[in-house]
């Protein structure tokens, strides 16, 4: 099988795609900087936590969608990955709420 070396054709870089990847990286860094600014300007509270969670979901969306390429995969795969995460969010909300009802001494 490996008697002859296969012909390797190196394609030129896809500048359009590479530019897009760097743009996504820029967005991720920008969101992180915004998170930093929020961390030191807003008072601690529910609104701040909500903002942080929102920005985290934005970042996660870019990483999973663009870097992990999920946005361009077949719909079945896309939803197979996303739908179970609903239960994780549900579990998180339920447990954090339950936690407030636990009295620690």
């Amino acid at each position: 099988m490996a008697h002859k070396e296969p012909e390797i054709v190196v394609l030129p870089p896809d500048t359009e795609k590479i530019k897009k990847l760097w743009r996504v990286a820029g967005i991720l860094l920008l969101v992180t900087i915004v998170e930093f600014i929020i961390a030191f300007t807003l008072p601690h509270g529910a609104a701040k936590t909500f903002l942080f969670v929102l920005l985290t979901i934005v970042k996660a969306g870019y990483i999973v969608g663009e870097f992990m390429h999920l946005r361009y995969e077949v719909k079945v795969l896309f939803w197979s990955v996303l739908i179970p995460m609903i239960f994780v969010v549900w579990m998180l909300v339920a447990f954090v709420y339950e936690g407030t009802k636990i009295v620690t001494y």
Partner: protein
Amino acid sequence: MDHSTATVTHGRSVWDGGASPMGASYGKLMMWFFLMSDAFTFSGLLITYGLVRSSNPAYVGTPSDFFFSTEHWPIPEKVFDAIPFFHGVEAPLVFVGFMTFVLIMSSVTMVLAVEAGHRMDRAAVEKWMLWTIIGGLTFLGCQAWEWTHFIVGTDTPTLMKVFDTKLGGWKEMEVLGANLHVNQYGPPAFADFFFFITGFHGFHVFSGVLLNFLIYYNAVTGLYDRRGHYEMVEKVGLYWHFVDLVWVFVFTFFYLV
């Protein structure tokens, strides 16, 4: 956008496994399934953190008056405020911000390696894989420092109420640094979660660096050229992005909130 570099369908009928139902190869699909299970594990850790944190009283007052105590959960920016080589300088969250930057950048270099793999460009794959490995090692080094600082502690110990198992009761004592039993920053669970969550993530980074090195080695020796595709770069890339993704969540829930 055509993405799949490899198709396993050559010369196989549909009934012999020639079809890929989700438009992804077997290996990529299995990587996605593994990452799903891994996501559940990390969710379990972070949700438990949320439960315990919300069951502990939060600090009431302005951040400038904050003090370490087992009576309330610490504000993260008051715990993680040190940077290497600048002893005594308060730089809240700066170091962990740098770590986030490093990990995001290594994710970018990884995706560039994947892009180069699609083009069968071995030299570019080698270059970007090497940058990814360097990024991973930098992150691990930073984490080693972070852990050391956390374990050793600050300059001044905290007077804390600690449960003494020999005495069978509570006693006041000075605590410096952190371990799984007691820590100077807050309730014992705070340090426990720090060690378990960042430790489990750090272990993922460590194995990710090993896998990245394996891919780099295989690319250098020309294995993927002989194989005719660079799909392994893509699969390990998925894992590496996942490690970055988890850090995004750890960063928010452990360091920011």
